[in-house]
């Protein structure tokens, strides 16, 4: 039946007849296109329903939220705490800074406004492009800084012109002024615009012209100095203009800091080392640990960096010869040379490998295996500890170091504050290096050799110290207490003595006597630098550290080949109060270049009696509300 009908159909339409697929596809397209069209219309309906939901049903709720968006909060920058020296001389303070800003949204044309302003203040092409870029990037209602540090004359003139220059705004902010900038530069540091990472942490950094500490005490005490910002809540109209002030919270001025530094001594110290290319001096109070002077040459003036820095000058400072920005007192790492013998002697005595009576013979050199280590002169026989320190005999300490081994020497060194940062209150302090067996295996993947122990005994080889560490070492030897340095006076009035070190006082006495001998006895290495004050003696130790091995000497210039000169000292010898260190890079012999500097600084400190005079106390009791100084409409 089915067969037949198919055949009949075939007969009827012709044998080759088949369904018209093209027609079918066309119809299918039409059907499906209409279906898709209906789907699209349905989805548009969904959008309409969504808009109805947002704009009609929940509109009042969103309107409320949008009104909240119209309240703007503006931060008010706090005044930065001042920095004083120990007797109350102002070192760093906030000064009024008259600024010129533009609000691009209110300018008829921004270039025109800038042209008008350039008749009163200098608007460089760099400033111009910066302002134009800022105006393009952000809303026209954010003020853009054009110039700061205006003179009163300019400020008055601009105020008179204000009605004719649309979009111009003036305000009074603060800038940082430094007094005694060059001597104090390394200690006090400077402020600068906040870095990008900082901005993300604290929104106050976004305020135009807000600055944070970038170096020195300004950086390490930045949280205290900064204070806390206030804020003002504004209601703004649709154009972002302020309608009225709703609420305000005053900003709190940062804490005032008093440094332990005496700017007078600091100036003298810097003047004294200026003759050298690179040198540093540290003077500290051995009882409190307060640093009285910390000078490093070459130095810089923070005023040149903190405010309107000249790019060329800045480049010179940052990349210039001898790195003026580096505070050598905490960042210079030098082999301590013979000054380290103080530690070697103490370690030898407490290890029991030598005693006060033992004498050695110094033939001028010392053999370890097949290698010979030289002494700076042949001292002959009968050298005991006292003589060895006094005359700085290398051979005595080669033998001492070899007997006790490097690990014991390292542990005593650490006891005296070497090989670690001391947190005196300056950012970027370097730790120096006190080597031991474990360190060498960890850092250099190598075994420790006896020859290295031997040269470590005279402060050469891997040993590295900073001048500040040497000052602390000297203070600890002088007092026998675990003195730590500090740069900022503590809030507490009561001073507690530092804890005693676990060292036999008799051994300390032997070493101190040796140091007195260095300055005051015949054949002492620093005899020429004895104090000229009657009845007061100084105790010290010279150091002359070799910089390069004799094998590499020919590669360097004569200056670079020269040895570092070091001198550590404390005074008065019988009742120590001050410890001082001087390091002169490539200065030659310690007794010639470094010791006279220490003598002069020490003399000045003793005559001024700096440590015993009452120190200044900053008045932080009442919190001064900072002046509300900011541009209108700053969000």
């Amino acid at each position, binding site marked *: 039946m089915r067969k037949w009908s198919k055949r009949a159909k075939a007969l009827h339409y012709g044998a080759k007849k088949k369904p018209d697929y093209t027609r079918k*596809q066309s119809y299918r397209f039409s059907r*499906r296109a209409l279906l*898709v069209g209906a789907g*699209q219309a349905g989805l548009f309906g969904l959008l309409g329903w969504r*808009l109805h939901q947002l*704009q009609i049903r929940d*509109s009042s709720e*969103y309107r409320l939220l949008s009104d909240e968006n119209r309240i703007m909060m503006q931060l008010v920058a706090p005044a930065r705490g001042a920095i004083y020296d120990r007797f109350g001389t102002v070192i760093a303070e906030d000064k009024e800074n008259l600024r010129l800003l533009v609000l691009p949204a209110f300018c008829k044309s921004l270039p025109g406004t800038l042209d008008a302003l350039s008749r009163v203040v200098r608007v460089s092409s760099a400033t111009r492009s910066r302002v134009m870029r800022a105006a393009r990037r952000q809303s026209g209602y954010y003020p853009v800084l054009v110039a700061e540090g205006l003179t009163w004359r300019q400020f008055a003139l601009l105020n008179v012109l204000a009605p004719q220059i649309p979009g111009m705004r003036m305000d009074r902010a603060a800038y940082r002024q430094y007094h005694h900038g060059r001597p104090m530069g390394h200690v006090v540091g400077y402020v600068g615009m906040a870095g990008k990472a900082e901005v993300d942490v604290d929104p106050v950094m976004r305020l135009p012209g807000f600055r944070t500490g970038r170096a020195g005490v300004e950086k390490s005490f930045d949280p205290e100095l900064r204070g806390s910002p206030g804020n003002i809540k504004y209601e*703004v109209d*649709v154009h972002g203009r302020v309608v009225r002030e709703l609420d305000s919270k005053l900003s709190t001025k940062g804490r005032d800091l008093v440094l332990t530094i005496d700017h007078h001594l600091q100036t003298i110290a810097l003047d004294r080392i200026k003759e050298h290319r690179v040198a540093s001096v540290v003077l500290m109070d051995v009882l409190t640990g307060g640093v009285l002077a910390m000078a490093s040459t070459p130095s810089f003036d923070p005023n040149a960096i903190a405010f309107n820095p000249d790019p060329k000058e800045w480049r010179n400072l940052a990349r210039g010869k001898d790195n003026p920005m580096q505070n050598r007192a905490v960042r210079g790492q030098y082999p301590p040379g013979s000054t380290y013998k103080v530690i070697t002697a103490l370690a030898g005595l407490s290890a029991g490998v030598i005693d006060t009576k033992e004498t050695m013979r110094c033939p001028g050199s010392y053999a370890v295996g097949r290698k010979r280590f030289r002494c700076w002169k042949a001292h002959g026989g009968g050298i005991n500890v006292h003589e060895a320190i006094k005359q700085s005999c290398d051979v005595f300490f080669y033998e001492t170091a070899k007997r006790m081994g490097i690990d014991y020497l390292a542990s005593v060194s650490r006891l005296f504050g070497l090989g670690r940062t001391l947190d005196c209150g300056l950012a970027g302090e370097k730790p120096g290096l006190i080597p031991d067996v474990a360190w060498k295996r960890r850092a250099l993947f190598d075994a420790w050799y006896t020859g290295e122990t031997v040269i470590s005994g005279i402060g050469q080889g891997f040993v590295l110290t900073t001048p500040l560490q040497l000052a602390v070492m000297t203070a600890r030897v002088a007092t026998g207490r675990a003195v730590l340095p500090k740069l900022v006076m503590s809030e507490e009035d009561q001073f507690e003595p530092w804890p005693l070190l676990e060292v036999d006082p008799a051994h300390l006495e032997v070493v101190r006597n040796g140091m007195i001998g260095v300055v005051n006895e015949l054949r002492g290495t620093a005899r020429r630098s004895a104090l000229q004050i009657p009845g007061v003696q100084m105790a010290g130790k010279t150091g002359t550290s070799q910089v390069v091995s004799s094998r590499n000497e020919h590669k360097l210039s004569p200056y670079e080949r020269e040895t570092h000169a070091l001198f550590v000292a404390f005074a008065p010898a019988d009742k120590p109060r001050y410890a001082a260190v001087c390091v002169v890079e490539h200065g030659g012999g310690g007794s010639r270049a470094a010791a006279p500097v220490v003598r002069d600084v020490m003399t000045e400190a003793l005559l001024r009696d700096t440590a015993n005079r009452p120190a200044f106390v900053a008045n932080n009791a009442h919190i001064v509300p900072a002046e509300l100084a900011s541009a209108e409409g700053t969000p």
Partner: protein
Amino acid sequence: MKMLFAETPAPKLNLGKKLWLLNWPFLLLVAGIALVGAGALYSVAGGTFEPWATRHVVRFCIGLALLFAVAFSDIRWWLNGAYPLYLAVLLLMLLVPFIGVESGGARRWLGVGELSFQPSEMMKITLILALARYYQWLPPEKIWRPDALIPPLLLIGVPVLLALAQPDLGTAALFAIIGGGLLFLAGVSWFYFGAAIVGVIVALPHAWEMLHDYQKERVLTFFDPERDPLGSGYHILQSKIAIGSGGLAGKGYMMGTQAQLNFLPEKHTDFIFTMFAEEMGFIGAVVLLALYLVALVFITYMALRCRSMFAKLVAAGVGLTLFAYVFINVAMVTGLVPVVGVPLPLVSYGGTSMLTMIIGLGFVLNAHVNRKVTFRRQEVRALW
């Protein structure tokens, strides 16, 4: 009669005739939408023609010239050129990872001197042409066969994968929507679509693993924008606040507070509908959507009137693109779908997307002008 229909010689069309055949009301509608865009950009800029509104109009005029050029060109060129064009653009897309310019964490742009363009934008049109070309060639009786489905799936799949690799989720989704829609319109069996949907549901968890972290984050905050109101949910939340606060009649032209006060991100590009809805309210937004819907009705009507499969599919494909753009954009700013970065065609500021859309509309008009044209089998077979 039927045979006659298939073998009607192509009507000879000169320029005058073409001008007569052009769908002028549709063109007027398109220009109207672009003008709405210019008005919105004028308002976004705070009541100035600079920097966006003027350039928007200039670009639209340049686009209009291109539209005419495409609309009046011979449809046979495009039929012949569909595959080579597709391959050329695919090559450019392949080159992007190597010589492209990176911006915002993704390499999407090719730069030639001052000009830069996105090959993936051009791919939307060439993909339509290539698929239409394929179904013009495929004998209709073979359309049900599974092996006939392999070439078009390849044509769609390769650009989707390339877009995913860029990574550009929005573009990949657009390719998939356009390609799938064209397969459906061409007459591929319902069965395959059912199978594909089941396949997608199965593959979804695996795809989730492959997404970039920022894309995952976007999807997650989409489901709960309050999860992170100042972070990635910020855009959606602020956009909803702006739209919702517009109410029925809106805050008035140039009176929108949210957009003007910079609470909105990218308010001149992807989020322009937000600002428009805030200032013009529910009425304005629905009118704008209605304009798009009318344009889509026009396109569907033109597609239905075409005789050749190629012209039908090209017109319908561009219609799909326009719809996908508008729907995804508006759904995105109203918080219905995740933020994927799709502009509102003809209204958002931005050169490449505007050019793509307007050239696509040129193809719609081309198909419409050539609605009576049919291609003989041999003619189509001879190519490739």
